[in-house]
């Protein structure tokens, strides 16, 4: 049993983003993002295409052209650090396009990422979580189905010992049965104590795994909804997402 989220949030947050501004080249995408995540929480960023969700994750990882404001992870300012230092502070990143290396086998993809913290999952544990990855060990990245690529993209960051996982639309374009499998995996990861920031457009999926939701619009957070209130506010959330 986990504590109610109001108590969790009274602790100092694991990740705290304040007044974050972000740019792709000349175009100004993030306009003062504010959010915070406590240790062990699963939090989603909900919002339409182009709202700035993916950009927020890219800003955290240090791979945005330009960002200003503050991103504090475990008491340390990340903004201005090179991406490799940010990753090594204990953050695992699963990008929207999955980012599977096509010249590498499944096994090589899985073992590629450097260990960034203690207590990462063992390969056999990852294989138990995603049995497909075991079957397809020797296949090259490009030969995988979309679902298998997604499992690999999540699986490989579990090995690294990263405690904060950034998952960018892990269910996008996947069959319902695979979405369910990903959902099981995320709930299991939460049980294991991982902290997860999840970008989603699939609001039903989001409410099946998360503690809280931030609604993102126009490059900033416009609303925050605890998972317990989702049912009551479902109409409003549908309106935000334009479904």
């Amino acid at each position, binding site marked *: 049993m986990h504590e109610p989220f109001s108590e969790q949030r009274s602790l100092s947050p694991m990740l705290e983003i304040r007044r974050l501004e972000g740019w792709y080249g000349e175009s100004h995408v993030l306009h003062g993002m504010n959010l915070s995540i406590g240790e062990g929480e699963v939090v989603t960023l909900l919002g339409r295409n182009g709202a700035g969700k993916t950009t927020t994750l890219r800003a955290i990882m240090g*791979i945005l052209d330009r960002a200003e404001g503050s991103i504090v992870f475990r008491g340390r300012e990340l903004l201005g650090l090179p991406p*490799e230092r940010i990753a*090594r502070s204990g953050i695992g990143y699963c990008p929207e396009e999955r*980012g599977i290396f096509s*010249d590498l086998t499944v096994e090589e993809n899985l073992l*590629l990422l*450097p260990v960034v913290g203690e207590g990462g999952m063992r390969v056999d544990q990852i294989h138990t979580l995603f049995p497909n990855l075991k079957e397809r060990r020797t296949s090259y990245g490009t030969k995988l189905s979309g679902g298998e690529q997604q499992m690999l993209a999540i699986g490989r960051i579990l090995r690294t010992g990263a405690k904060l996982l950034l998952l960018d639309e892990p269910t996008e374009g996947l069959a319902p049965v695979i979405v369910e499998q990903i959902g099981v995996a995320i709930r299991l990861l939460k049980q294991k104590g991982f902290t997860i920031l999840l970008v989603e457009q699939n609001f039903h999926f989001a409410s099946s795994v998360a503690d809280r939701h931030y609604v993102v619009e126009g490059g900033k957070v416009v609303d925050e909804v605890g998972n317990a209130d989702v049912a009551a506010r479902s109409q409003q959330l549908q309106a935000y997402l334009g479904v």
Partner: protein
Amino acid sequence: MMSIFSMPADVFLGQLLLGLINGSFYAILSLGLAVIFGLLQIINFTHGAQYMMGAFVAWMLLHYFGIGYWPALILSPLLVGLLGVLLERTLFRKLYNLDHIYGFLLTYGVALVVESAFRAQYGVSGQPYRPPSALSGIIDLDFMVLPIYRLWVVAASIVVCAATWIVVEKTKLGAYLRAATEKPVLLRAFGVNVPRMIMITYGFGVGLAALAGVLAAPIYQVSSIMGGNIMPVIFAVVVIGGMGSIGGAILTGFCLGILEAFAKLLYPPAASTVIFIAMILILTVRPAGLFGRTR
């Protein structure tokens, strides 16, 4: 007498060996270019100058310090490779976000400066460099007389190429290299210091060029124009093999060396152009080269 392809067997084998010797240099040099291009996306037009420097450093070590061939085989690639690292840190690094044409201009410009400096100092005539005593002498194969040093070059080249191929294709280090070639930004976001990898990779590619230079010194003599002479062929090899393909560069290097040797035998005037004719024909059919992939 037995004959192969309507050639006497001894003539055939003799040309094959000559082709393998030239092919050894083509393979090491185009391998270095392919490794560099794969990760930096820069066509290293300084490669010929670095090959020449490799030979010259070996010559200088002997001439000024009395350091012989075997230490030079290690020291020269190390030294020239370090100069390459310096070049990458100070100049190339500023070009990665710019159009490829800037990489061409810079590497070509550096080659001109380096080659002119050596020409000004040492002229264009070759400095003799003797093979080490252990590799001097000949083997009499009945059908031909073969200098031992040339056999050594073929063997050394095969070992170096095979080792590089194994490292790139079969090891964890190689997996990093292949991953960085494909998605450098993402690999950084996983915690890998890609800028440092790029620096080391460039140094390694340059070191290969210098190694070829040391191997070439006893065969071709050491001169400021040796790089300029061999590089057009090397670029043709890389283009035919497919830019950035490690195995392709190696295989194409050896094959074109052999092709050239047989052209020399069958129709001598075509010997110097046969590689470029092959290049035109192959690019017509496969624009990405024999082993290249279009992205």
